[in-house]
């Protein structure tokens, strides 16, 4: 039996009732904490070191504010903009060599690190080489190491990189990644230096970048404080920042309503608690680049499934079964229930909002029970039925997505059984990181990225990250064709041709899906109305905010 504690029903009922009696809360035009932005975050960072941080993890939020990278994304466009580099390299401006292998970055002069040292090309090389040399398993060094053949300091203000192969996604997904942040060489060398395979304890809890904010203090499990860098090379931030860490989500909502917090991290299920509150604005716009998906395993070790599972190890090898699951899922129930209506349905496997997304590509976005039944019958499992377990983390959207799947499938045929194993995060992570994976299905969200190549490589390529773990090659109708298309798009430098290839891939994957994509979650961020300059950019690490843009 599965127990889901979605915001703890009892707590929600009692707190909701209390809210109702205690209203109206403080509704005032007076600005609280002038000069200070108080952001209530969901998660505590696990590290502040760009060489150690895992994509999508809480530390990326802080790294984004304190460190700079060579290039960045602006607040209102997916186009790249200069940051520590003074221009975006292209073939036209000579920044990219004709063969697409060498990238040359002209760097910004007169920039200083927070420790007072001057920024030069040496620091860029040091920072990137450091991440590659440390090569921490929890970090993202592979983003650099997998594509870079060599790097060179041309002069103090010029840095060049040569790639192993041409890459259409290098600037979007590597140069802008948090692992490519530029750290102060002096600070690192003065505090432990570089040791292969060993985290730098000092840098995990301290920071020395060139960004608009300086790191002040990290009080574990309490708050993390940043102050404005008055010597910033760009527009100075206006507000100091205090990030309040974790705590009860209801208290975050209460704090926002009371004006104690300026921005809070929430999921759409909290909108009802906030909507209409005086002095609170709910920002709704855009989509997170983290589609919520359920994986189907085609590489199940013999005898490893939970005892209640009756499926064979090759159950998902049949594309009709995978299609049937995709048709059976009740997308609208998931969107209108747990996501409170905030989200969209994206094709396999390019999120909406990214280059390469094809709006005309076929999408699984509506439950089609008749088609699901036809496919299950054709695959020969309709009469006999099956029981399969899906593992996920407890108490969040993933678990609710699994319950929607359970309801969708079991409603289709009483002989079908979905066992939702909602477990603690660490238990799930342990199971999820296993290779081979000992469950037939699991639910989570995709990692965010700024380029379609990342998603297609990770979630569709037969030799990619999940292709290998899940054994996509065992199930694709034409694995070589899909691999070829993804590989060719990855090195295609002509955007039009590249987009056309991605459009073709999306059509191929509709016929041969390896995931059930529940939805692409909508961005919902609540903030005090007195906050000026509020903007979100899903290409920035979650919660997709740059505090330096805000004012009160």
């Amino acid at each position, binding site marked *: 039996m599965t127990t889901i504690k979605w915001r703890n029903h009892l*707590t929600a009922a*009692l*707190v909701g009732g*209390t*809210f109702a009696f*205690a209203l109206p*809360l*403080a509704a005032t035009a007076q600005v609280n904490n002038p000069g200070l932005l108080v952001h209530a975050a969901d998660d*505590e*960072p*696990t*590290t502040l070191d760009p060489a150690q941080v*895992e*994509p999508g993890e809480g530390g990326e939020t802080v790294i984004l504010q304190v460190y700079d990278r060579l290039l960045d994304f602006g607040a209102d466009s997916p186009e790249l903009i200069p940051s520590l580099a003074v221009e975006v390299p292209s073939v036209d401006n000579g920044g990219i060599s004709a063969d697409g292998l060498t990238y040359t970055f002209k760097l910004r002069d007169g920039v200083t690190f927070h420790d007072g040292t001057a920024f030069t090309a040496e620091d860029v090389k040091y920072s990137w080489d450091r991440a590659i040399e440390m090569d921490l*398993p*929890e970090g*993202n060094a592979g983003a650099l190491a997998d594509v870079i053949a060599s790097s060179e300091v041309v002069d103090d203000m010029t840095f060049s990189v040569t790639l192993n192969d041409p890459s259409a996604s290098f600037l979007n997904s590597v140069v802008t990644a948090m692992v490519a942040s530029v750290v102060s060489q002096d600070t690192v060398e003065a505090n432990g230096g570089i040791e292969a*395979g*060993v985290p730098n304890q000092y840098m*995990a*809890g301290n920071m020395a970048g060139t960004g608009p904010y300086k790191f002040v*203090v990290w*009080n*574990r*499990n*309490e*708050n993390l*404080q940043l102050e404005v860098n008055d010597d910033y090379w760009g527009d100075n931030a206006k507000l100091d920042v*205090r990030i*309040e860490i*974790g*705590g*009860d989500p*209801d*208290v975050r909502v*209460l*704090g926002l*309503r*009371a004006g*104690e917090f300026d921005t809070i991290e929430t999921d759409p299920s909290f909108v009802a608690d906030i909507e209409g509150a005086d002095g609170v604005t709910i920002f709704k716009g855009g989509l997170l680049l983290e589609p919520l998906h359920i994986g189907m395993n085609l590489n199940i070790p013999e005898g490893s499934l939970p005892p209640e599972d009756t499926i064979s190890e090759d159950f998902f090898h049949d594309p009709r079964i995978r299609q049937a699951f995709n048709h059976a899922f009740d997308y609208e129930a998931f969107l209108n229930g747990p996501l409170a209506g905030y989200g969209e349905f994206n094709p396999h496997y390019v999120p909406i909002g990214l280059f390469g997304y094809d709006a005309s590509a076929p999408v699984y976005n509506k439950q089609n029970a008749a088609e699901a039944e036809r496919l299950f019958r054709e695959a020969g499992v309709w009469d006999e039925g099956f029981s399969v377990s899906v593992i996920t983390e407890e108490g969040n959207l993933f678990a609710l997505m699994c319950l929607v799947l359970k309801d969708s499938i079991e409603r289709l045929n009483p002989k079908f059984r979905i066992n939702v194993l909602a477990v*603690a*995060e*660490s*238990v*799930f*992570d*342990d199971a*999820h*990181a296993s*290779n081979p994976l000992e469950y037939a299905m699991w639910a*989570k969200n995709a*990692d965010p990225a700024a380029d379609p190549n990342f998603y297609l490589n990770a979630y569709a390529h037969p030799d990619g*990250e999940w292709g290998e773990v899940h054994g996509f090659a065992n199930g694709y109708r034409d694995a070589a064709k899909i691999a070829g298309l993804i590989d060719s798009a990855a090195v295609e430098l002509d955007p039009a041709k590249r987009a056309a290839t991605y459009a073709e891939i999306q059509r191929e994957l509709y016929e041969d899906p390896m995931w059930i994509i529940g939805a692409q979650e909508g961005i919902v961020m609540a903030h005090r109305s007195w906050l000026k300059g509020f903007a979100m950019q899903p290409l920035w690490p979650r919660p997709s905010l740059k505090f330096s843009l805000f004012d009160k």
Partner: protein
Amino acid sequence: MQLRDYIFRRLLVLPILIIGVSIVVFTLTRVGGSPIGIYLSHEMTPSEVAEIQARFGLDQPVWVQYLQWAKGILQGDFGYSGVAAAPVSDIFPLKLAATMELAAAAGCVALFLGITLGTFAGARRNRLPDHITRIVAVSGASLPQFWFGILLLIVFWAQLGIAPIGRSDATIFASIDHPTGLYTIDAILAASPKAFWDAVWHLILPALTLGYGATAIIARMMRSALVEELQQDYVDAARAKGLAEKIVLKRHARRNALVPTVTVIGLTFGFLLQGTITIEIIYRWPGLGRWMADSVLRGDQGTLMTYVLFTSVLFLLVNLIVDVVYANLDRRVTLGK
């Protein structure tokens, strides 16, 4: 047996108990699975997982892991907290101080209100004050702490804006040194009235919420014990001697009524420590309770083992103290037999 000998004997046994507790704690946490999950992500290859295992010694046989853990503890190394992203030994004292400060404040609330209300009710048995105290006590014991806490937050923090949340004002907190980690004490040592007031002001709501539940238990026990004592012959004798009722109550009956109450107070300490988990989450109090709640949810076994070991040892010591106090209050109690 002399009190000193008794304490000495108990302290001699203590290390054996601690070793036993440590084995139980280690075994129980490992029954729940490997502690590796907190450090993993799905992007990791098997070799990267193995690298993480080696980093934390999790590639060794379990008994070796226990010995390494035990050795680490003896050297002051309690492992690495995945939740706090720092060595447990760096963070534990800070969190412990925050929790102890809260528990002590709540304990003071509970002791003062519990004994006062219990005495008040016991001396006026079955009269209006007794009924009112019963209502207060029953409500304290039955109100869910998370609800009561949020209610106080809504009224005093969110609506009236007169009470703060968290442990301190970040700026004031940073303005003084923290040699003890106890904010109130550090403020006194720094001779900073502003910081002291900030500490007390932040303590009021969480201490009241936490202490209220314990108040109920102490008040009810105090009342029952006092009622019983007031029916004893020695009380009649004292009254017959012409002693004022106030003196009979305070010097005779109340002192004896405190004996069973002290036992309850000892047990209440555990109640307060457990209660800090809920209270710290609601009030964003940066203490052990909140840290442990996160650790439980995320499977941070290194932190959990330290916490359980610490509380077990603490309980052993508190029990010893309670026994000694008990013997002091009631001379009929003979230690060591």
